[in-house]
C-alpha cells in the first residue's frame, strides 16, 4: 500500500442534487497528482472527504496508511492543506499566523518558514486580511510547506493569480517535492499548469471519476484520427473510441475520430478492417481533457 491517498467505493451525498458514487482513487506516494475537473464536479468535496472535513456515507479512506476518520488527528499532522478560499483569521498578522500554526505541527520547520517569508517577500507585521490575493495564497502555501508534511493537498492553489505569483508557488512546490519526496495532490482546472508539473492525472466530472492515469499514458494515449471509409461497426478494437464524427466537406467517407489508449502500432488494425488512417494528430492535455469530458457526457464508456 504505497498509495498516499487510497479511496475505495466512496459514496457521499450532499442534499439532493449532488452525489459522489463509487469513487476509487489511488494517489501513489511521491507523485504529483493532478485532479482535473470542471467547476462543480466535486473536486472540493472530494478533498474535504480526504481531509475528514466531511464524513462519507460509505467507503474506505486511507491516507498515508492511516484510516480516516479514526486517526484524523495523526493524518492532519502530516498533511498540508491549502483550501480554495483563505480560511485563516484576517485579524491576525502573518507572523502570528506562522507562530500559531508552528505550535500545532510537531515537525514544523522554522528555517523553511523564514526562508519562504523572505522568498515570497511577505511582511511579517501585515494583517492577513489586508494581504493581496496572491500574498494570501503564498502565505497559505508557506504554512502548508513549513509543516514538513508527507502529503500536500492543494485546492486550486494558483487559481486567479498573476503569472509571477504562480511561478513562485510552483517552483516552491517543486523544490519541496524534490527535497522531501512528498506527495502533492493538486486540484485545479488550469490544465497547462498540471501538464507541466504532474506525473499523474485524474479527471472527474459530476461526482464520478472519468479516468485516472499517468500523465504520459493519458496524454499520448489520446489521438485524433482522420480515417477514410471506416466500417460502421468496430469489433473489439484495441483502443477506446471516444468520439466519431464525419469530417465536414472532406468528401466521401472521411471521418474524424478521437480515441483513447492509443498505441502507435494500432494503425494495422484499420488496414485489417479495410479502412485507412490518413493522419494521426497528437492532442495536448487540454484537448484530450475536453474530448474526454465531451465523450463522457454523451454517455460514452466510463473508463
Amino acid at each position: 500500500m504505497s498509495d498516499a491517498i487510497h479511496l475505495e467505493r466512496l459514496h457521499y451525498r450532499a442534499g439532493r442534487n449532488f452525489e459522489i458514487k463509487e469513487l476509487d482513487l489511488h494517489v501513489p506516494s511521491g507523485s504529483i497528482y493532478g485532479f482535473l475537473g470542471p467547476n462543480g464536479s466535486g473536486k472540493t468535496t472530494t478533498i474535504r472527504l480526504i481531509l475528514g472535513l466531511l464524513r462519507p456515507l460509505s467507503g474506505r479512506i486511507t491516507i498515508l496508511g492511516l484510516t480516516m476518520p479514526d486517526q484524523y488527528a495523526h493524518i492532519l499532522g502530516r498533511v498540508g492543506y491549502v483550501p480554495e478560499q483563505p480560511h485563516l483569521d484576517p485579524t491576525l498578522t502573518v507572523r502570528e499566523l506562522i507562530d500559531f500554526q508552528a505550535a500545532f505541527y510537531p515537525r514544523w520547520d522554522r528555517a523553511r518558514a523564514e526562508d519562504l517569508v523572505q522568498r515570497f517577500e511577505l511582511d511579517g507585521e501585515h494583517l492577513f486580511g489586508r494581504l493581496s490575493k496572491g500574498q494570501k495564497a503564498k502565505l497559505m502555501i508557506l504554512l502548508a510547506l513549513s509543516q514538513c508534511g508527507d502529503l500536500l493537498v492543494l485546492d486550486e492553489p494558483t487559481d486567479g493569480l498573476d503569472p509571477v505569483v504562480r511561478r513562485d508557488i510552483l517552483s516552491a512546490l517543486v523544490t519541496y517535492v524534490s527535497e522531501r519526496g512528498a506527495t502533492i495532490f493538486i486540484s485545479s482546472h488550469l490544465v497547462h499548469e498540471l501538464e507541466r508539473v504532474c506525473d499523474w492525472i485524474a479527471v472527474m466530472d459530476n461526482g464520478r471519476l472519468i479516468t485516472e492515469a499517468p500523465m504520459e499514458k493519458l496524454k499520448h494515449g489520446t489521438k485524433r484520427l482522420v480515417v477514410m471509409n471506416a466500417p460502421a461497426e468496430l469489433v473489439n478494437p484495441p483502443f477506446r473510441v471516444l468520439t466519431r464524427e464525419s469530417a465536414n466537406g472532406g468528401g466521401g467517407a472521411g471521418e474524424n475520430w478521437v480515441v483513447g489508449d492509443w498505441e502507435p502500432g494500432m494503425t494495422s488494425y484499420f488496414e485489417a478492417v479495410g479502412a485507412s488512417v490518413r493522419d494521426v494528430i497528437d492532442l495536448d492535455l487540454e484537448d484530450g481533457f475536453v474530448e474526454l469530458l465531451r465523450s463522457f457526457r454523451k454517455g460514452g464508456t466510463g473508463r
Partner: protein
Amino acid sequence: MSRVLALVSAASLLAAPLQSQDSLVARERRRADSLLSTWREAQRLADVADSLERARATAGSDTIAVGGLRIIVNPSSLPLREAAERAWPVIDSLYGSAAEDLPRYPYIFRAVDPDSGVRRAVLHVGVELPWDLDLRATSMVLLTTVTPPDFDPALADWLGAALRPALRPQDERAAVFVQLVTAPSEAVRACFLGDIARCQGVLQIGDSTGSLERLYATPAEREALVTGPFGDYFARGATALTLQNCRQHRVDACTALLRSLPPGSLPRPLAPAARMLLVRVALHAGGRDAYRRLVARPSATIGERLSSAAGMDIDSLVARWRNDALAARPKPLTLSWWASFAAIGWTAFFGFCALRSSRWRL
C-alpha cells in the same frame, strides 16, 4: 327687718340659680349613676352572652388536657395530643410556676375542611384550624396562640408584643445583634460598644423623662428622624417653616419639632425583639418563679420588675443581655459550599455541552 328680708330674698334669689345649680349637679349625678348601672348591666349581659357563646362553641367537643394546657376541640384528625405533649415543656420552661394558671385560659379550636365551600356558623370565640395540619404545624399553633398568664397592659405596652415561647431563639438573638449594629442612633451604637447605661436608656426600662435626649442625641439623627418618617406629618400647616429650617441642618428647629410630638409617639430605636430578648434572659436567669415575680407588681417600673424577676440587679441583667446579643453574630450569608460546587458543576456541564454542540465536521 326689711334689710334682713331683702338679704334673705336676695340670697334666695341668688340661691335659686345656686339651688338650680345644686339640682343641676344632683341631676347630673343621678344621670351618671343611671348610666353607670346601665353600663354594668350591659357588661353583665355581655359576659352572659360570652359564656353562652362559649358553651355553644364548646358544646359536644372533647377536652384534651396535657400539663397545664386545656384544648377544647371538635373531634378531628388533628394530632393535638402529641402537639400538646411537645409544646407543654417549652411553655412550662418559659412561664415557669405561673404555667399552673394556664388551665384558666383553654384553647378553643374548631377543625374545619379548608376546601369545603359550605357556610359555617361564624365562631366569635376560638380559632378555626384546617384539619390536615401535620404535627409540627399543630404544635407551632399551640406555641404561638398560648395566652400568657395575667399579662398586664404596662408590660404589654413596653414589650410591644405578647410574650410567647420563641420558635427560633437563635434568629431572634441575631436580629437583635443586627439592630445594635445598624440602628441609626448614637445611643444604640454606644450600647453596642459597651455603655450599659445607654443600653438601659435605649431599652426604655428606666424613667421615661428626657427620652428625646437619651435616644436621639446627635443632630444628624434628629434631622434624619424629622425628614424621614415624620417628613410629611410636619410638612403641612404651621410646622412647615420649622421643617424647612430643620432641613437646613438647624438642629434647634428639629428638636422643637420632635418635642411637639405627642408623648410616646417618638419612634423607638430598638424593635420589640430586643426587649423580648431582655425578658427571656431575665426569665431564664430567674428560674421557675421568675415569671410570677415579673407579673407580680404591675405598678412598678419595668426595670425593677425585670431585676426582681431575674433575681439580679438591672445593670448585670442588661450586661448579660448585651453579651447574649453580641455572641449571636449571624452567620455571614456568603457563598455556601454547595453553591460553589453547584457553580463548578454547571461550568463543567456547559463546557461539555459546548463540546457536544461544537462542530465536529463541516
